[in-house]
């Protein structure tokens, strides 16, 4: 089998899926995988808390990108979970021995090649294992700029981390990859679905409504939580947008890249314009991140600073409302 090609990606799930499919001859960019997988979303769930902080997400649920893009393109996967870590490592060795790169679900905390300050207990990290040298595994972690190696013990621990969304040794690889999938239809269907999900779900915490909902709540955080806790919550939103691997602006730039590629493929000016608009909205999200970081740093934490943050969010919501409403009829 040919050598595994490593490519630096914005996000672990879309990067891993794109890499595994590319190896099997289906050459799609990461934004294409992300877009066809309907990755873009927004939600703010005050009732679901992680470490006491409400969950904010700029994308769909973990593994949804892989599931949706595969359904739209007709890709089928094999996946296994294991009860015994030893059996899971033996199975991995067997896959690698037959020259088959595989995707693994891991916990970032136990992966030593990440800098200490980036290592938190997050169980949803995807990467590719493509070889073994002695006791070290050769990994292509899409969010790292080069390939890395990882000792067997560390990888085993990362694959059998416990807690929320425990990987239980999950390993996956494409079983069937269509030679010539109908990309145009998949792209149209995906854009339509994402646009509907962003604008039409009648729940206050999902899609564009979720952005406004966050804005309204965030404005009241200082009086409700006190200044210290409020700063912590703002920091967590900014981390979800920029720190966890989104390609910038909470996946907005990656989706703009997808719309650009889709626009060229379908020769659609509407999509190319939408890509430009989403780029501008992404810049606005970056402004939100800058304001949020200033607040966290304590340079500015008056009520007016929170109002400014909330207003920036509302401007992002208005942008995305307009954009996705138009996209529904553009494809």
């Amino acid at each position, binding site marked *: 089998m040919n050598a595994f090609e490593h490519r*630096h*990606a*914005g996000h672990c799930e879309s990067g891993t899926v794109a890499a595994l499919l590319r190896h099997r001859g289906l050459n799609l960019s*990461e*934004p294409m995988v992300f877009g066809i997988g309907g990755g873009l979303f927004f939600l703010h769930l005050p009732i679901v808390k992680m470490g006491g902080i409400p969950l904010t997400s700029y994308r769909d649920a973990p593994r949804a990108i892989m599931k949706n893009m595969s359904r739209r393109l007709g890709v089928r996967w094999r996946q296994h979970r294991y009860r015994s870590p030893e059996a899971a490592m033996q199975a991995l060795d067997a896959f690698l021995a037959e020259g088959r790169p595989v995707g693994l679900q891991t916990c970032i*905390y136990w992966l030593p090649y990440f*800098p*200490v*300050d*980036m*290592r*938190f*207990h997050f169980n949803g990290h995807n990467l590719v294992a493509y070889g073994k040298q002695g006791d070290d595994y050769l990994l292509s972690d899409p*969010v*790292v*700029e080069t390939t890395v190696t990882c000792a067997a013990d560390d990888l085993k*621990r990362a694959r059998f981390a*416990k*807690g929320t969304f*425990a990987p239980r040794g999950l390993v996956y690889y494409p079983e069937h990859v269509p030679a010539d999938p109908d990309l145009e239809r998949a792209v149209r269907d995906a854009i339509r679905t994402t646009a509907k999900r962003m604008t039409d779900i009648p729940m206050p915490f999902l899609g564009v409504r979720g952005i406004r909902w966050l804005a309204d709540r965030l404005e009241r955080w200082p009086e409700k939580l006190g200044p210290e806790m409020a*700063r*912590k919550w703002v*920091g*967590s939103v*900014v*981390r979800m947008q*920029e*720190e966890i*691997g989104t*390609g*910038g*602006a909470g996946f907005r*730039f*990656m989706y*703009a*890249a997808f719309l*650009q*590629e889709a626009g060229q493929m379908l020769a659609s000016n509407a999509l190319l314009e939408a*890509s*430009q608009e989403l*780029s501008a909205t*992404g*810049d606005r999200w*970056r402004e939100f*991140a*800058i304001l*949020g*970081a200033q607040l*966290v*740093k304590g340079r500015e934490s008056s009520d007016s600073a929170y109002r400014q943050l909330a207003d920036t969010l509302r401007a992002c919501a208005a942008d995305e409302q307009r954009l996705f409403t138009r996209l529904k009829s553009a494809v």
Partner: protein
Amino acid sequence: MKTRDVPQEESILAGHQRACYAQDENGHYVVVGSIGWEVEKIVNGQANDEVRAQIAQALAGARRGVLSPLAYHMARRQMDPGLLAAYTGFSRWRIRWHLRPKVFAGLPERILQRYADAMQLPLDELRALPAGDDHERL
């Protein structure tokens, strides 16, 4: 974002790069490696300060004798009783009970070994506290 605007600032990434999508001079989206962004450094720093504060608090409690060394090692592994329960198979209640110094001191080796395995620590280290305050987190 334009490629020239991709932040290349002081960093938490320890020499690594983060992939950012940005538009080149022709407007085409490309992947650009960012060595760091102040915004990221601030919010990541906030999260890590929180971790460090919890470790310091647990260590101070253990030194005063109101908490067992388990509290310190748990904080150091960024765990709470819930997560440690998932790793060890002990109940949260039992783990909280083991945070008492006297209870912890009387634990048999086979219980301690399960904590040591779960937190990837040698048994001796689990029983002890670090000499200074400038100890390693990982």
